[in-house]
């Protein structure tokens, strides 16, 4: 039976890329549909995600699911190969806890710090550093948050693993450095060098150009 798996995404969105990474890790074939999220969302996207009108949306045999972490859990439960969650219920709960922490605390703090004008940067950067410090403690000397291989928390932290360093390059903000967060910094290298992850990341130059354009816009 041919399974129909589609992903509605946006090339630069870490949330969208999370879903693609999970599918690729599990060897699931899917059709990708690029959405113009800034100017022109497709009628299909609005039909499949009427509540939030956002990417990513996973469509499996005609049934849509929105919200990247919800989608990751669905992918895990539907395609059992190469699990992204641990087996033990407590470890699973901790993975979910950290994924939530990333989305609810880390990302907003980092985003705020990244786009604050230089003169107003100090406090947001401090807050973002607190988040990163806490997140680093979850690594506990492991290679990945998931242990020996990439797991749900690594996937959820993709923004920190890749997008953040590019934002730092463009804005001059220093948040994640080898000196301040040696373990987390090392993790970002491990993460991006992982072969499946590499294939799931947006092109560096294109993303840098996108961020530069965004800064130019906010300056006007």
């Amino acid at each position: 039976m041919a399974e129909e798996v589609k992903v509605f995404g946006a090339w630069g969105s870490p949330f969208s890329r999370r879903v693609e990474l999970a599918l690729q890790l599990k060897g699931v074939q899917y059709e990708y549909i690029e959405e113009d999220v800034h100017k022109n969302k497709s009628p299909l996207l609005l039909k499949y995600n009427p509540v939030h009108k956002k990417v990513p949306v996973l469509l499996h045999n005609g049934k849509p699911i929105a919200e990247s972490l919800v989608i990751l859990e669905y992918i895990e439960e539907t395609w059992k190969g190469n699990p992204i969650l641990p087996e033990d219920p407590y470890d699973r709960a901790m993975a979910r806890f950290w994924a939530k922490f990333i989305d609810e605390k880390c990302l907003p703090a980092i985003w705020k710090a990244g786009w604050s004008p230089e003169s107003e940067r100090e406090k947001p950067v401090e807050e973002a550093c607190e988040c990163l410090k806490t997140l680093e403690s979850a690594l506990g000397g492991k290679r990945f948050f998931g242990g020996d291989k990439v797991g749900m928390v690594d996937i959820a932290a993709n923004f920190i693993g890749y997008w953040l360093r590019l934002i730092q390059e463009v804005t001059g903000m220093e948040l994640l450095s080898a000196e301040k967060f040696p373990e987390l910094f090392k993790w970002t290298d491990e993460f991006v060098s992982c072969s499946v992850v590499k294939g799931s990341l947006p092109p560096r130059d294109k993303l840098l150009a996108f961020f530069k354009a965004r800064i130019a816009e906010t300056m006007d």
Partner: protein
Amino acid sequence: MAEEVKLFGMWASPFSRRVELALKLKGIPYEYIEEDLSNKSPSLLKYNPIHKKVPLLVHKEKPLAESLVILEYLDETWKNNPILPQDPYERAMARFWAKFIDEKLLPTAAKVSHSTGKEQEQGVEEVHQQLKILENELKGKEFFAGQSIGYLDIVAHVLFWFYSAGEASGVNALTTEKFPIIYEWIEKLIKIDAVNECRIPKEKHQDFIRLRRESLKSASK
């Protein structure tokens, strides 16, 4: 066995009550520890150093925070009386709507509680829209989870708080006229023993909300 599970909670917290409700529905014995949030216990701070909040579940000395994370843990550890559906798609839908409640509806409702005038009016509009969307999920069903109460009902029972908060702040966004289906659902819920045991006395709750509103107002002066 009861000493194996401890719940650090707070009587007025809907998040804390969620976990209690799940424990009761699954028949899991537990020890309850009431926290004074203005004077958090050393145990709470030790077990939940990151968020320093309730609810906090401690099972065999291992702590877990975040009500939705705890609910999933309970279901995976105690297999009887499952609260989440079996089918992966239905599980995804339950999780989606739980997130909607916690990330959209509740922050909007909090805004309504803590604002006045035009800002409050806009907030009420937004809450109405969100409640309408949520109410849609009840159509044709006894409960959010289907024939009997489940995960999404446990998460959504925070709607009880809307009513108390509404009366205390003078703005009730959740009315029977606008949301008859939600009201019908509430009527069904309160017939369930476990739910009733987790309800908080309305007056006590309203006093609590009024006090909080006042202290927030004086803090912002």
